[in-house]
């Protein structure tokens, strides 16, 4: 085998590797592994905001910080229990298609289908939730999916009361 043959074989080998690295076509339909039901645990707002109760999840590792931020936000807003994204320690979800009245202000576990409205550039100005611009702290970090992202929504299928207090 001459050097020329070695070069050819090697280059051919590399070309094959490059082709393989091109990877098989991956399509959305080939990669689908849907999760229908998601479960969230958190506190339900005491009142509706734009017709829906809000569930807020707190970061368990920083509950105090979350609480103080929530208190500041709700006091300033005058909306008891509404705690949308005042800090990165909480995440909020608009609860739809289920009468949550009996759970207002309480800690619950909700199961349902999560949906994500289109990101709203106005969210950065505090309007992620329609009408929420009047609420200081109700900014894009709520239900975060990246900067300028609106609160996420859940179509609720099941609710279970959970022990624990809510701010």
């Amino acid at each position: 085998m001459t050097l020329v043959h070695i070069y050819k074989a090697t280059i051919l080998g590399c070309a094959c590797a490059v082709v393989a690295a091109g990877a098989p076509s991956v399509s959305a339909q080939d990669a689908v592994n849907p999760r229908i039901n998601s479960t969230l645990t958190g506190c339900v707002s005491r009142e509706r905001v734009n017709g829906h109760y809000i569930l807020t999840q707190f970061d368990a590792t920083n509950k105090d910080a979350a609480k103080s931020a929530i208190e500041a936000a709700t006091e300033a807003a005058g909306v008891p229990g509404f705690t949308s994204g005042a800090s990165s320690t909480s995440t909020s979800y608009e609860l739809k298609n289920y009468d949550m009245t009996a759970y207002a202000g309480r800690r619950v576990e909700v199961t349902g289908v999560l949906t994500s409205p289109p990101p709203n550039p106005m969210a950065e100005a505090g309007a992620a939730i329609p009408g929420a611009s009047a609420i200081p702290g109700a900014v894009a970090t709520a239900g975060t999916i990246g900067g300028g992202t609106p609160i996420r929504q859940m179509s609720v299928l099941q609710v279970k009361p959970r022990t624990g207090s809510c701010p």
Partner: protein
Amino acid sequence: MLQRDRREFVKALVAGGAGLTLSTRAFGQGGRGPAPLAAPKIADRVSVVSGAGGNIGVIVGRDGVMMIDGGTANRAGDVAKAVNDVNPGMVQVLFNTHYHFDHVGSNERLGMNGVRIVAHENVKKRLGVTFDDPAMGRKMEALLPAGQPTETFADGGRMTFGQDTLEYTHTPLAHTDGDAFIFIPTSNVIHTGDLLWIGRYPVIDYTVGGSLASMAAALDRVDRIGDAGTRIIPGHGGQAGVTKADMRRTREIWLEINKRLEDHAKQGHAIDQVIAAAPTKDFDERIGSGMADAFLRQAYGGILARR
């Protein structure tokens, strides 16, 4: 000295090749070569590049080429070559039918070269953020700024490309929240994006508002455009173009399945009960049963999300 340099060169090539192979395996893609791309011509100036994600429409104009969708990013180079084989003119415009990764994979490559990228405004919003999408069971990754649409629309519009005036129409909350189909009147061709799937069940991105019922309704809108001779490029399958009759048959099946799923939802059934009842059984052979479970989860999720 020369001999040694050659040896080093060969070693480097071999090492490079091995590295590529290893990294490929590390990503779980070893052992399968990429699917070859096909590019059948379905009208005088319209071809369909397939095999790299969603079907890509290629329109040849006087001064270049327009692409409708761009396949997956890992095949963007192959797509560029296939499009070049159709016509060596420069790509002037890329139209995104929706935001899914198997349709916007050429955005960054073309955007960096100054190509106009046109899409519905929600496509741009979705492509600007990374977010978790339970319906798709994955994170949907944001694109680099260069890959973002440069022109957006809300409802639809017209666009001149070469000798063609193309008409595009947004169908709200169908497969996603930013779908659009596009009609090429001079060729009598419609590219539906993922509003239509032939030969397999559709994907329904209910996280962003998609539903099977709305996809069927969107096909009604497609049906009102063109005439009985219109050739249709689906988002997946049917890459040689299908007829309106094919599209209507698919729509009827979707509506029937949706009705059955609505009945399950009314009875409060969980998805596992729905899957166990096999509501698509009589269609699986015709449509393809490979993805029936995933399809049922998405179709049912779309119903539950809207209740």
